[in-house]
């Protein structure tokens, strides 16, 4: 009942989805059709059923939901291992992003059992039966589980995520920063830009064209909190907008879902506090 870490999977699976019609608000081209069933290979003793979102841009057909039976004994413990097993043994057309397989690159961010996480750090045993694997929520889909993150990345580049110092860099050493000042960046610099948080934010679902979203705002705070940065005023000016920043209503789905245990909700609250300070 009390979640103390975002890695905790919810015990109570009372409500799997909001009580809305299944096709609520889905545009025609996004409607998900039933897909193929891929049975387990012969001789498989322990199997796990996966329902995986598939979309083939070249087929001209709508996305579909395929059902795969994965041999538990043959693949590794993580959901990413199951996906790789499916791709190598069952259906080689299954497409997904992956790189480090240890939860530091952010490539394999997906919606697993209705919450966003990295496939490489989610144990198969923690998944529901059947397990559901969808691409990151509310993103355009390029193919299968690959989301199109161009807009989110454009929003990220818009906040100018680099150091803006008024003095040129010192000749003899790096720009000095006290231990206390460096500590202000802890919990914000570790973001791997997987966009799990932004994808899970209802405000970004409804206003994602103008609302920057938790990932971008967390990075905005990372630069505002940096003692070496001298452009706080300009950064706050760029953020002070009813949509860019103030669509955040502290829903806190972001903090709940961050696979690195970071706190975008808190970062946004710090931005609002700094925004208020300059009016007082």
């Amino acid at each position, binding site marked *: *009942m*009390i*979640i*103390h*870490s*975002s890695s905790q999977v*919810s015990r109570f699976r009372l*409500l*799997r*989805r*909001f009580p*809305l019609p*299944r*096709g*609520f*608000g*889905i*545009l025609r*081209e*996004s409607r*998900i059709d039933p897909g193929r069933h891929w049975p387990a290979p012969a001789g498989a003793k322990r199997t796990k059923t996966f329902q995986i*979102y598939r*979309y083939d*841009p070249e087929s001209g057909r*709508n*996305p579909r939901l395929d059902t795969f039976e994965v041999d538990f004994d043959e693949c590794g413990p993580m959901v990413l291992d199951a996906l790789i097993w499916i791709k190598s043994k069952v259906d080689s057309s299954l497409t997904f992003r992956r790189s480090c397989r240890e939860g530091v690159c952010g490539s394999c961010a997906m*919606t697993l*059992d*209705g*919450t966003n996480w990295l496939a490489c750090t989610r144990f198969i045993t923690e998944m529901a039966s059947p397990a*559901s694997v*969808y*691409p*990151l*929520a*509310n*993103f*355009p*889909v*390029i193919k299968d589980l690959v*989301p*199109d993150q161009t807009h989110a990345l454009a929003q990220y580049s818009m906040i100018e995520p680099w150091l803006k110092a008024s003095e040129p860099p010192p000749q003899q050493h790096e720009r000095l920063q006290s231990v206390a000042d460096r500590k202000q960046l802890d919990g914000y610099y570790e973001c791997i830009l997987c966009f799990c948080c932004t994808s*899970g934010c*209802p405000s970004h*679902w409804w206003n994602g064209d103008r609302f920057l979203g938790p990932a971008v705002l967390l990075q905005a705070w990372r630069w505002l909190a940096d003692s070496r940065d001298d452009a706080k005023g300009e950064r706050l000016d760029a953020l002070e907008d009813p949509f860019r920043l103030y669509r955040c*209503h*502290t*829903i*806190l*789905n972001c*903090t*709940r879902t961050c696979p690195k245990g970071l*706190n975008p*909700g*808190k970062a946004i*609250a*710090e931005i*609002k*506090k700094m925004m208020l300070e300059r009016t007082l």
Partner: protein
Amino acid sequence: MRPRSPNIQNYRPQLTSVLSIANLITALISTVALVAFVAWLVAAALRPSSYGALHAAAVSPIGRALLVIATFAFFLHLCGSIRHLFWDAVVGFELRSIYASGWVAVAASIVLTAAAWLVGRFVKG
């Protein structure tokens, strides 16, 4: 046109999002209750007959049920809003605190609603 991956159609309801939408719904109910309160004030300022009609509606079973719902909605919005005020002061952002304060808000609003209606019954005698 690329399809868009499902959002609310597939994303799991969590305490975070459910309490947030509850804060919104209870805000709308409280707005209706506020307008009803203004109507009550206007009725009190006008002729006794208009007040009498509103009063009769309020003590009827349907009126009473609506008032209980409105009281609960108001208290849930109040407790949720106090939770929001703490967040605005950047207090209570750890996941443990978010979940604990959420359950406390729900429990407190049930207790307050029950208290309001029980005391009201006691006052009437």
